[in-house]
């Protein structure tokens, strides 16, 4: 239903444009829950904004396409975009709690959205608003409340309710739980999952907290420095992470059950995207890097259904590495 293909987003500032999103492709099927995970600065929010056509200068899409139900969002006219927005595709922003207008009651903001897309009759507006609030578990009496009268968790759910006003096919969420406590967070995630089952919409969920999506997403895209590092079924990636970065991310979680082990995290910090790197962008921090990693940028390869961008899985390079490590078991093969 959503097909992102080769999307590239550059920030055109000053002399060096910064490539925030580099050739990213992903697809979302009907009713699927796709999680996009990565550290701050990896480009996941930019990717989201690009998909939702919310980029503002100096950020600009310089390559690729975003196909939503057969139409390319990147080249779409503003008029057509307005028609699609909120009806078929809605967005829940990060710190959505602060995205509510503080001087208008919540109900008025719902009415705003409804009227912008055609619902005129006051009765219909009230009915639909009450209905979406009920869906997220908020009493309809709060339509008359101002945002500051609601708690943080309730505001977040109100934003999700607003995103569901027209039962869109796709809801894009940018770290909607980042400001919530763990109990409210779990409540919200289960709510989203419930609604997904009930209404059948697809979700693209961006977060830096991998454990959060572990239980709720069907597929996972791990991003690093603007590129896709690994992508595939969630359980697959959690049980057997292929990319050293994914492995590092998973190991950075202290567990409350089981043995207490000292953890390492991933040393160093993400690269400066304004400087062009040769070779793999993760190599400076990679615990298992090969000499080739510093010179050869890895391509996205397919390994039994999971895509991974790492030279360790490139048969040609791996062979060279083995040969150089003194285990010359395979002849040198040309890289395709």
């Amino acid at each position, binding site marked *: 239903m959503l097909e992102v293909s080769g999307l590239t987003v550059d920030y055109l500032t000053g002399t060096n444009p910064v490539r925030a999103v580099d050739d990213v492709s992903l697809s979302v099927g009907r009713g699927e829950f796709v999680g996009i995970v990565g550290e701050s600065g990896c480009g996941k929010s930019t990717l989201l904004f690009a998909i939702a056509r919310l980029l503002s200068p100096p950020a600009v899409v310089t390559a690729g396409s975003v196909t939503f139900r057969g139409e390319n969002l990147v080249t779409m006219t503003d008029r057509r975009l307005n028609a699609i927005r909120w009806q078929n595709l809605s967005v829940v922003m990060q710190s959505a709690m602060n995205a509510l207008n503080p001087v208008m009651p919540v109900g008025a903001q719902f009415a705003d959205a409804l009227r912008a897309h055609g619902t005129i009759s006051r009765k219909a507006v009230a009915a639909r608003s009450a209905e979406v609030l009920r869906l997220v578990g908020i009493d309809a009496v709060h339509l008359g409340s101002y945002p500051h009268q609601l708690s943080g968790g309730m505001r977040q759910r109100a934003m999700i309710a607003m995103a569901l006003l027209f039962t869109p096919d796709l809801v894009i969420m940018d770290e909607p739980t980042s400001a919530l*406590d763990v*109990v409210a967070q779990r409540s919200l995630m289960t709510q989203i999952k419930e609604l997904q089952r009930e209404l059948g919409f697809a979700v693209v969920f961006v977060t830096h907290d991998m454990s959060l999506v572990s239980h709720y997403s069907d597929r996972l895209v791990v991003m690093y420095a603007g590129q896709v590092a690994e992508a595939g079924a969630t*359980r697959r990636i959690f049980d057997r992470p292929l990319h050293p970065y994914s492995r590092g991310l998973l190991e950075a979680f202290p567990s409350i059950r089981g043995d207490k082990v000292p953890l390492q995290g991933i040393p160093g910090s993400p690269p400066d995207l304004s400087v062009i790197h040769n070779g793999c962008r993760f190599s400076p921090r990679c615990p298992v890097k090969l000499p080739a990693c510093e010179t050869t940028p890895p391509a996205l390869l397919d390994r039994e259904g999971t895509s991974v961008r790492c030279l360790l899985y490139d048969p040609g390079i791996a062979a060279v590495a083995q040969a150089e490590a003194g285990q010359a078991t395979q002849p040198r093969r040309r890289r395709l």
Partner: protein
Amino acid sequence: MTELLRAEHLTRHFKIGGTLARGTLHAVDDVSFLIGEREIVALAGESGSGKSTVARLLARVYPPTSGTVTYFDGTGAGKPLSALRSRRDALRYSAQVPMVFQDPFSSLNPVFRVSHGVLRALKLHRPELSAAERRAEAARVFDVVGLGAGMLGRFPHELSGGQRQRVGFAQALATRPRLILADEPVSMLDTSIRIGLLNLMAKLRAEEGVSILYITHDIASARYVADRLIVMYAGRIAETGPVEDVLAAPRHPYTQLLLSAVPDPKAPPPGLEALAAAAGERGEPPKVIDPRPGCRFQPRCPVAIDQCATVTPELLPLGTGEAACHVAQSGAEVKAFS
């Protein structure tokens, strides 16, 4: 365990509301705990539980409404914080009990280099040092926190969030502290960076002999780094004890709820029934304004008895720790949330 700081019946209320709707916000009510030397105590709770207020009370940002905090500076009997009136006493206390803040993006003044805070702290609290000695000491603490002396000349905007938090710890270390109050130091960092700072805190305890009060809402990180755990709910303490014991066998229903809500990536995903049950739990901590007597968790508690609605439970010893729950204190085993 040598006592470092003792809080007894600590209470802090705030007057809120305008002329028409006055009320008293009970941010912290009757909180008592101990912190010993060379130990990391985690103070866990959701927002609104009062944990940040406790930190600010200990940091003397404002005085308590009632109750005392006694600080043992190693020279004999402890002194209550209210007795520290002179500027010299106050400075000495803030040198020995500094605070590390939560937001890496606003905890450093953007106009100055990152060495500014450290050098100012040294100037204020260790006036016997010369300028060169101050610079050397700044380089030393930067090394201890893993930044390296080369970073001293950088500006905050050149550092990542994790590095800025390390600067915060360096500022605290500069004054040779005995207890560091860390107010959610990793909450605003990416999960992959948190481990580095948690390891730093463990290292400070081991190598510099510093105690740390680690305030957090993340139980898993509390387990990773702390020796003892204090769980707060709605301004009161729900449960305390050695961290492994509390997590292995939580007595208070709220602790059980917290534990059940932590997503564990290594555990199998919950089934549909578990999802439905969880969805019913809204997760709204109460704002405690003019509370009635009775347990504050009672509205959300699945195992509450009649007594819970009328009598406020006291924090009493239970097993290796303490718990404030009528049901637990009666000896029955509490199984509120799985």
